[in-house]
């Protein structure tokens, strides 16, 4: 059973647009919610993470929005660039990470 559900599977955005990827989790014990970015042939790399005591975290063009009551969180990429084209994974952890299935983002120039 998948404890973290991610959508969409793939996303195409024009350069300068906003990319939005959503995740939902089931286990209310999760207390750490990271997003990972993966380029082809590379391992996933931590992009940004949030704890459930805050509703939003922003780092540069990347923002996590967190809704504890709905058990949902999302990644927003502002001013999307072709260099952002990658696969993005959400995850949730309580001492042991559970990953979503991934979203393949393509940013068209």
């Amino acid at each position, binding site marked *: 059973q998948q404890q973290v559900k*991610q959508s969409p*599977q793939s996303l195409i955005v024009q350069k300068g647009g906003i990319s939005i990827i959503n995740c939902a989790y089931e286990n209310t014990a999760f207390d*750490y919610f*990271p997003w*990972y970015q993966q380029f082809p*042939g*590379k*391992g*996933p*790399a*931590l992009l940004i*993470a949030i704890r459930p005591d805050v509703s939003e975290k922003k780092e540069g063009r990347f923002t996590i929005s967190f809704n504890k009551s709905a058990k949902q969180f999302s990644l927003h990429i502002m001013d999307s660039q072709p260099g952002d084209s990658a696969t993005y*994974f959400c995850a949730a*952890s309580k*001492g*042991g*990470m559970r*990953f*979503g*299935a*991934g979203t393949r983002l393509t940013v068209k120039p």
Partner: protein
Amino acid sequence: DAGITQSPRHKVTETGTPVTLRCHQTENHRYMYWYRQDPGHGLRLIHYSYGVKDTDKGEVSDGYSVSRSKTEDFLLTLESATSSQTSVYFCAISWDNYGYTFGSGTRLTVV
């Protein structure tokens, strides 16, 4: 990534043969993990270690075993490789069981 090395990077093996993948870290992190990545499934945990000789099963552990005799090395063994184990395998390390650093992966093909 600096501090974590996986070997080999690519391997082709025959069905029924044993295969061992190696993960080596220079960060002295307590926790080490083996994941497999398959399209549509994301990353699924195979086994993890929380110290030397301390290991436990993940969600897809059948057909795999692990060993950790030193802090820096975590070995994943496929007892008798099957075509369903064709995948990309990632090792990860963590000092607190939260922030993970991943290696570059091993692409394994079982023919």
